[in-house]
């Protein structure tokens, strides 16, 4: 029976990653790359295919689904630094966003590597039973890709965000004893992002005013993500099911690149009993109304923890990930290897290596 379920999970993964790419490269570059449409920019989230609702506690001790906050037993304060794919690109991205655009900046883009990509996140998270708060003063996501060496065109997306998130959850039992297997929670996010997004040719870079073809945009948002969860605590596989909505609130102004649309999400997780260690498997169904294809709705993540080491795999419509997290009492390190489909290159395969260092108190 277990083997059948394992093959079923593999089939889900195959359907996620096979077939026609969901986001073919657009010469007009009108979309934000899939890997940038993420709420949690942490090694744990990335390594687990960005599952959230189906997972109780992330490997780093934080909780993504607020409905599971009542189950948290320990209080943790985590300061973390996540960096995906390179330090030098971080400076490029920062200059690009925060300093006046110049021809020299444009020129540097064409003089460098064909692909420059970086993701970074600095955050401080406090989690305790029923409550969590996170302040992320700096989160950057940047990618630029050059195409057509005969007439170079650059696709560029760069965004810098800062956010404050507070989440709370209560067990259903305090409302009604019949609801003791249910939990309720909500997460409130306040975020501010600045971004540029567009496509331009090397000829434009040399002759036109950069702000004409690459205007900088700013967005602020206040969003709520309420969720409800059921946990079969006494069942051997500890099944859990959760349903939630996201992005209830407002964004100002509204941009196509970051629509922050309200949508429905669900998650199913199990914890198969094993002799040594702890196995957790989760399947999230996200953007149930708005995702363009079935594959875009699926996220799969699994982890196996033994001792200080937690091994993670994850998959969604655009990426397959493998990660390792090693945690001492106060220090955690994580490495995530991402094998993803490059939206800007018509679905070609690319790899990224991300690292995270966190101090846990």
């Amino acid at each position, binding site marked *: 029976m277990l083997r059948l379920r394992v093959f079923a999970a593999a089939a889900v993964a195959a359907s996620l990653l096979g077939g026609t790419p969901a986001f073919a490269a657009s010469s007009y570059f009108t979309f934000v790359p899939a890997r940038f449409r993420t709420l949690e920019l942490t090694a744990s989230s990335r390594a687990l295919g960005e599952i959230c609702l189906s997972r109780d506690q992330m490997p780093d001790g934080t909780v993504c689904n607020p409905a599971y906050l009542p189950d948290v037993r320990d209080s943790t304060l985590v300061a973390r630094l996540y960096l995906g794919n390179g330090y030098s690109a971080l400076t490029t991205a920062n200059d690009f966003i925060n300093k006046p655009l110049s021809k020299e900046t444009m020129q540097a883009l064409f003089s460098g590597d064909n692909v420059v990509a970086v993701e970074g996140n600095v955050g401080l998270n406090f989690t305790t039973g029923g409550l969590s708060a996170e302040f992320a003063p700096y989160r950057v996501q940047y990618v630029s890709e050059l195409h057509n060496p005969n007439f*170079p065109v650059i696709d560029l997306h760069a965004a810098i965000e800062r956010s404050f998130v507070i989440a709370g959850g209560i067990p259903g039992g305090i409302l009604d004893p019949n609801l003791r297997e249910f939990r309720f929670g909500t997460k409130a996010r306040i975020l501010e992002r600045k971004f540029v997004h567009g496509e331009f040719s090397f000829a434009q870079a040399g002759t036109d005013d950069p702000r004409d073809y690459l205007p900088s945009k700013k967005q602020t948002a206040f969003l709520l993500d309420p969720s409800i969860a059921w946990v079969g605590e006494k069942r051997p596989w500890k099944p859990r099911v959760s349903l939630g909505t996201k992005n209830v609130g407002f964004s100002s102004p509204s941009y196509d690149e970051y629509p922050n649309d309200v949508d429905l999400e669900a998650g199913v997780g199990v914890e198969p009993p094993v002799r040594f260690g702890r196995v957790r498997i989760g399947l999230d169904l996200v953007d149930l109304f708005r995702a363009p294809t079935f594959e875009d709705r699926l996220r799969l993540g699994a982890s196996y923890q033994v001792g200080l080491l937690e091994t993670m795999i994850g998959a969604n419509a655009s990426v397959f990930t493998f990660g390792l997290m090693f945690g001492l009492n106060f220090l955690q390190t994580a490495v995530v290897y991402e094998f993803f489909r490059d939206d800007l290159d018509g679905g070609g395969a690319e790899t990224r290596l991300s690292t995270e260092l966190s101090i846990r108190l």
Partner: protein
Amino acid sequence: MRRPISLLLIATTLAALAGCGKTRTGTIPPKEEAVTLMDRSQNAKAARILEADLRENPDDDEARLLLASAYMGLAGIDVYRIFDAFQDLLFKRSLKDQIISPKSDPNAKNPLGNGKIPTKDEVKSQAEGTMIALDKSVSSLQLALLYLDRFPQIPAGNWPLVEAALAQLESMRDPASDTFTYRILIRLIYLKSYLVEKVMRNEQFGSREWACGFDARNFDEGLAFFTRHALAIDDELGQGAAKGAKALGKAHKNFGFLADAANYADGFGEWSQGLTFSEVENFVKARFNCN
């Protein structure tokens, strides 16, 4: 228990590899497929796809731009290789500061001299007027080559591809500012290649040895070619600037020497009007005492 988990890992990995490594044929729009092919230097295949696409959608400006770039790729022009040359023009010092009016050169304010093409009242004979106009034309071509020397050269066998690329760009219905920049760039490369291979041919251009072997027909064709593209560049600089390419507006002033050179070429054409190529060659040889 360990075995099923291993199976899951392996199966998922294989699934991921299968999905990400999928080749992109059939389902990709032609323009995107062409760009991917050009990224891989498969310019001929990209050109075929774009030509077929344009037969169905002849008004697609973007496809024309891509097809022109595929032709340029086939002609052996990689923009990255000429970026260093091009950035002087567009990103750094002005052309005027470097070539037309370098501050260290006291004679550079008017590199073509103060003379203008003489009128018929100012010279004794048609031969003298023709020689003065020829002298100005040669000087202007030498100046042009001095500037164009920075650009790469395209072998004569690939010139039809350059012509085809320019034809695609010129037939665009609503070209953007960068299209004009691209056209200018192509013309500059083409001018350099043509002048070197067809007009100057060797380093003795303008010298007595060159004059004694003067080929008037070839020189006339060269001037006509130069004039056509010089005036086109002048026009495209203006159009590109009007479309928002501010740097082209600045470059327009610095490219005044191209228009001047075209005027000298016109002057030579006017003075030599009515003369046969042999008569012009004889004037030149007499002037330089070639006999």
